[in-house]
Each structure stands twice: as structure tokens, then as C-alpha cells.
């Protein structure tokens, strides 16, 4: 029996690896094969043709694309992320601290959003059709229907402009006390929590509601089980797969949502770095950031798939 689980899990991992290769291929070609000559960009419009040609050779720009792709991929695998075009610093050095900042933001958000969303989603399903359920549903539809920047700007309007409780911008280097942390992270985390939780609540609720309509839940009801028992003992263990998936998908959305949030609150994270890199067409930096995001997404999804396999009682 465990053999089957192992082979299924290994299968998922293999799929993730293949996907990663395809994705890196896509990222590489999207950023390098399209118009705009890197050497010219680097040296500026006034550079002599000889200088440009020299740089092209030095950067292997004249090699066939597939070679350059493999070269780049090998570099990535060895931890060589390349050098930034914009300021000639190693990409790794540029990313380091900012990556940690983004992770902090994501971790705090996840720590708040996941328990909150699961509780709301499960309880809404438990009391389906009640006023509470309807309120939760309307709220979540409202949140998923508006752009993230609207939630962020509303938060600024309310807490910074009208109430004047919080600063409008984040400066992580000034943080020293708990109060500072609260002030700095409050709005970015609040915004991201809203954005991420809404999806998670909806999907969790849907998963539980679906399991609640199965014959075995009816059977439990006819044994005299109470509503919490029906949900917690009978529905939830069977809804685990879809719920884990919902959590993973929502958290992966964090990766996208963070781009807007970091920009608005001027938070020095990796997403902000990437947006700035786009403005300067700093390709190695863009490529690396993109790969980090894709890797994060794939890890989450694969983890969810494997957890779903583990939680499937039929495979025991």
C-alpha cells in the first residue's frame, strides 16, 4: 500500500521537475529572444559597433539560443544567478536581503490568513444558508471582485489618511520595537490577508459543502450525530485533499498579490525589486526573480498534491 503512495508521490515530483524545466525555458525565451539587443542596452545608444560586438562575444550573445539557455540553466543549478545589467552587482547579492523581506511578509500573512480562512470557510459550510453564511459569502465575493490595489488604497485611506493610526509607507530598516513591526506590517499584511483569505474561504466552504451532501454524511446524521460532529468527524477528513489544494492555490496567489502590495507600500521585497528591474530591462534580475516565484508556486502545488495523496484513505 505504501508503495503505491510512494510511486504516486514520486510521479508528482517528476511532473514538477518537468514543469520547472518547461517554465524556465519559457522565462528564458520570453526575456531573451524578444526584440532589443542586450549589448546595445548595456552600452547605451552611443557605443561604437566594435564595443557592442566585443561585448556580444564576451556574453556569448552570438551563440545559438539553445546553448545560451543550457548555459543559463547550468548556472542557475550551480547557484550562479548572473550579474545585474543595471549596476553590475551579482544578482544573488541584490536579491538576498529582499528575498528574506518578502518571505517574512508572506509568512506573517499565511500565519494569519490560513487559520482565519479555514475557520470561516468550515463554519460557513456548517451553517449553510444562515445569515452568517450569507454574510461570509457576500464579503468574499466582494473581496475577490475588486483589484488588490483597491484594498490597499482603501486601507491607506482608512488607517493612514482618516484615522492616522499607521504610516502610509513601509520602512523595514527602522524597525526596532514590536510596536514598529506592527505599524510597518499592519497594512501590507492586512491587504494580503484579505486578498488571500477570500479565495481560500470560498474554496474551503465549497469543498466541505460538497462532502456534506454525500451518503455517508447522511448516514451519520441518521445515527444521531450533531452538526459539528458531522462536519468535523465525517466531512472534514474527506474534504482534506481539496482544502489543502485551496490553501496552496491561495498561498500561491500571495506571490502575485505581493507584487502590488510591495509596490504600493514601498516595501523592499523581491517583487518590488522585480518591478524596478522591468523598468530598467535588467534581464538577469528579472529572470532570477521570475524563477524564484515559479519555484515557489510549483513547490506549493506539488506539496498540496502530495498531501492530498497522503490524506486519501483509499490509498492506505
Amino acid at each position: 500500500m505504501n508503495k503505491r503512495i510512494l510511486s504516486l508521490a514520486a510521479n508528482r515530483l517528476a511532473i514538477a521537475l518537468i514543469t520547472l524545466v518547461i517554465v524556465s525555458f519559457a522565462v528564458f525565451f520570453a526575456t531573451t529572444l524578444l526584440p532589443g539587443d542586450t549589448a546595445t542596452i548595456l552600452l547605451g545608444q552611443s557605443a561604437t559597433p566594435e564595443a557592442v560586438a566585443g561585448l556580444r562575444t564576451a556574453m556569448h550573445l552570438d551563440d545559438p539560443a539553445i546553448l545560451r539557455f543550457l548555459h543559463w540553466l547550468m548556472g542557475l543549478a550551480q547557484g550562479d544567478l548572473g550579474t545585474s545589467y543595471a549596476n553590475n552587482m551579482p544578482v544573488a547579492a541584490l536579491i538576498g536581503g529582499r528575498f528574506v523581506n518578502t518571505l517574512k511578509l508572506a509568512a506573517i500573512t499565511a500565519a494569519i490568513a490560513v487559520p482565519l480562512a479555514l475557520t470561516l470557510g468550515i463554519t460557513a459550510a456548517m451553517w449553510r444558508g444562515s445569515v452568517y453564511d450569507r454574510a461570509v459569502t457576500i464579503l468574499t465575493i466582494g473581496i475577490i471582485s475588486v483589484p488588490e490595489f483597491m484594498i490597499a488604497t482603501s486601507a491607506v485611506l482608512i488607517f493612514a489618511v482618516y484615522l492616522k493610526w499607521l504610516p502610509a509607507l513601509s520602512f523595514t530598516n527602522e524597525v526596532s520595537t514590536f510596536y514598529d513591526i506592527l505599524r510597518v506590517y499592519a497594512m501590507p499584511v492586512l491587504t494580503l490577508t484579505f486578498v488571500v483569505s477570500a479565495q481560500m474561504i470560498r474554496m474551503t466552504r465549497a469543498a466541505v459543502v460538497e462532502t456534506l451532501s454525500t451518503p455517508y454524511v447522511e448516514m451519520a446524521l441518521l445515527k444521531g450525530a450533531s452538526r459539528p460532529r458531522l462536519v468535523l468527524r465525517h466531512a472534514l477528513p474527506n474534504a482534506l485533499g481539496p482544502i489543502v489544494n485551496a490553501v496552496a492555490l491561495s498561498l500561491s496567489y500571495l506571490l502575485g498579490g505581493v507584487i502590488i502590495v510591495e509596490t504600493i507600500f514601498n516595501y523592499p521585497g523581491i517583487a518590488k525589486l522585480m518591478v524596478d528591474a522591468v523598468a530598467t530591462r535588467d534581464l538577469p534580475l528579472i529572470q532570477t526573480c521570475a524563477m524564484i516565484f515559479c519555484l515557489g508556486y510549483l513547490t506549493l502545488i506539488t506539496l498540496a498534491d502530495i498531501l492530498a495523496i497522503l490524506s486519501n484513505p483509499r490509498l492506505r
Partner: protein
Amino acid sequence: MAPLVSIRNLRVEATTDAGRKLQIIRGVNLDVAEGEIVALIGESGSGKTTIAMTLLGHARPGCRIVGGEVRVDGADMVALGEHERAAIRGTKVAYVPQSAAAAFNPAMTIMAQVIEVTAIHKLMSADAARAKAIELFKALSLPEPETIGDRYPHQVSGGQLQRLAAAMALIGNPRVIIFDEPTTALDVTTQVEVLRAFKAVTARHGIAGVYVSHDLAVVAQIADRIVVLRHGEVQEVGTTEQILFAARHPYTRQLLAAFEPKRQDRAAEVAADRPVPLLEVRDLTAGYGPIKRDGTPAVAAVKSVSLSVERGKNLGIIGESGCGKSTLARAIAGIMPGYLGQVRFNGQEIAATAAERSREDLKQMQIVFQHADTALNPAKSVEDILGRPLTFYHGMDGRTRDKRIDQLLDMVHLPRLLRSRRPGELSGGQKQRVNFARALAADPKLIICDEITSALDTVVAAAIIELLRELQRELSLSYVFISHDLSVVEAICDEIVVMYRGERVEQLTPETLATPSHAYTQLLFASVPKLDPRWLESLPA
């Protein structure tokens, strides 16, 4: 003494998709005495399950109890609050579902679910409950009673699960148990064991029962009294003997009549010469999974089966679930190609897959599936469904096609005004007729019928069989008729092939039908319930 269960003027309302309210139970009265087993019998939609559910104070989503009272041991389940009802469920009234396979939670062990009632109602300690469950497993003659509870539901067979569901119902010492078609999903040979176990356990503990079923013969074995229902109203009530042998209501008689064996006299019309058979199957092996080195599939559902069908004759293929009869049908039709062996049609070998067969071969051999619900495209009108094969095979269009569609509808006895209906607006029997008419539209020589009456109520199924015979006389068709139901096959077939575990066990002619030689065939035939209350007891154990 007041009866244990007394239902008075029960009315249940259902809300349709359109939001319209309909009464589906209309003033039903019913009593069940202490220790008595009462059967509720009727066709689908008669409201039998809905009534049984009200004993638990439960109405399925979309339904609502709107009037009357349901007293169980004095308490009115209709008037009670949700908490009081929950307290009665599992302790006074228990439920055995139609499909135990669906009613067991796949994420919990069987034992945890069987003793859950004792935990919910705090009846006894977990250890005591486990000991009691094992006693019940023994009483229900389950294999490995000590350890079977540690398994998960998917690790146990259907017949065992059904008995485990009975154990789950019995653990709380209920006064009355509701059996909701508990053997319908089982094979006949398994059904016998399960029925026996149910009967023994209820008799020993003096438990009353409400047994919901559509099968009079099954009910005759276990019930003291029978209530015949139709359209949410009681048609007739009587002791089992009264209903079986002295039914007064015309509807009851109709139900009984559908049970009469309708064996036909066809042996007389044996053809003078023996021409090439219409269909010949030689050593056909088919199955699933990767192909092994010797060219056979990993799971061989059909193992080296040979058979032949004469022109204008019918061949029945009978066997229990998993015997390979449907796979055989699909292999013949080219849906699931056989790996070894050959299929000869009209004296010539034809390709294994439908994709490789000529349009003429495809046209002459049609297959009709069991579930008309899924065999008819719900998005198309009857006209379009029947019109497509006419256009496709015969290139008909315009008025000729319209005329032919009308003819086809006439042939299957459907009113022409159904032309513009969608399948969703037809009854089960009507859908199956359209399904059959579509096969006829091709002008086939052979029609493979895969369990085409199994999903229908007995009365409706009998009418379909009658139609098949009539069409055969008119169109000189041949049928390969696949079924698990001996009486249906007997009614229409000239010869019968019995299958067991993918192999052909025996081929019977009308002469040898009464005296099968193979032990499995004997067991299979003996397991078909008879309209005789003493049949179950008369069976050798």
C-alpha cells in the same frame, strides 16, 4: 396495546427545480407492531423511501414533512425538535442504507463507524461497544469478525459491507430498523446470504423492521405484512400471503403479473438448414491493463470465450457483476477490442476495433446500453437523436427523414408528438424506447442489448421485453441479450450462455434450461428469489 410505530395522515412536500411545491406523500397511514416486519413496496417515485425516512424524522433535501404524525414508541418524530430527534436516531430507530458502499465514510475504519452510535449517545464504553460489535459480526456471519472492523470500507466486499451496515444499525439496540432496499445493489447469490443474516438477527432480537423494496419476491421472504404504494398513496395493505396469493388491488396484480415467467415457445421454428451463423465469436479474450508478454491483458475480464448467434435467433448472456458479460458485449461491438480470438459477422472476420470497421459493418451491428439517461444526449431532441443515424448511415434528409423518424417512433410505440422533447422530459421507459429506436434507425441485423431493462421498474421492463419480441417478428432481427436477471433472459432468448469469472461456464438451450449441469449455474438459478414466502428457508444453507 398501541403499535410501536404509527403513522397517521402523513404528508410530505417536495420543491421542484422550478420552485413549485408538490405533495409526494399524500395522507399515508401505517402501523408497525412490536417485532413485526412491514415491507413498503412500489416502483421508483412511489414514495416508499420517503415514508421510511420520516420514521427517523428525516426528509431528504428539497423535501419537507408538512402534515400528519409519525409516532415511534410514543414520540412524534414530526413535532420533535432537532435535538430530541437526534437522540432517538440510532437508539430507537436505526437505518440500513441501500448502498452501504456509499454510506460508509471512506476515511474512517469500519469499527469506528459501527460503534459511533454508542459514542454519540454515550451508551457504553468504547471497549464494551467493540466487544458487542464483534458479537454482532459473528451473528451476521461475517468472516474474520475479530479483525474485519480494523479495515477501511474499500477493503471489504459489497455483501459484507451491507451486513456491516446492519451491525451498525443494531449496535444501539433499536426497537425498529429501516431497511432501505438493502439488497438491491447485490448479486443474487450474495443477496441470499444477506437476507438470511437480516432475517435471523431481527428475529432473534425481536426487532421490528420497515423493509423498503421494489422486489416482491425479496420482500416475500422477510416481511410479515406488505404495504403496496403508488404515487405517495397506499394502494393495498395485507399479510404477505394475502398480497401474494389474494391481491385485490389491480395495481398489485399488475406488479405480480410482471413476475410471471413469460417463457416463449420458439423451439418449434427451428430453421430447416443450418446456414452460416450471423455472429460468431471464437476464443475471444479481452480485458484491461497493460498487455503481458503472451499477448493477453493484465486483467482478463473475458477469457477465451466462443459463441455463435444464428440469424433471427437470440442469445442470452447471463452472469453476476464482474463476470465479464459487459466486457464481452463491448469487445463484440468493437468498443474494447479483444486481444486474442476473432469476431466473425455475416461469415466474415471483422476488425477488432470499431474505428477499423467499415460503415456497413457498424450499421448492421448496433449496441443499446443499460442507462438511457447517459446513452441519450440530454441537449438534443428526440428528433435529432433519431435523425442523426438516418443521415449518417442512409444519407436521408428533409421529408424522407421526417417520415422515417415518425415510423421509428411508431415502431417503439411512442407518440409522435414526443419528437421535439429532450430526453430529460421523458420517463425512464420512454427513454429506453428512444434508445432502442436509435439502434433500429441504422437498419441493423444484430442488436446487442446490454442490461437494457435493469434500470427500469418491473412493469416497464416487461413492456420493453414485449416490444423487443414484437420487433423481432416484424424485422427479423437477432439480439444478443446481456443481463444479470434470469427471468428477463428466459423471456426472450433461444439459447443462454452462463458466464462466471470471465469464462463461459455453460450454454443452455430451452430444453436444458430446467436442468443445468454446472454447479455454478445451479447455484445461480437457485438464488433467484421466488414469489413464495418459504423459498428462502427451503434453500440448502
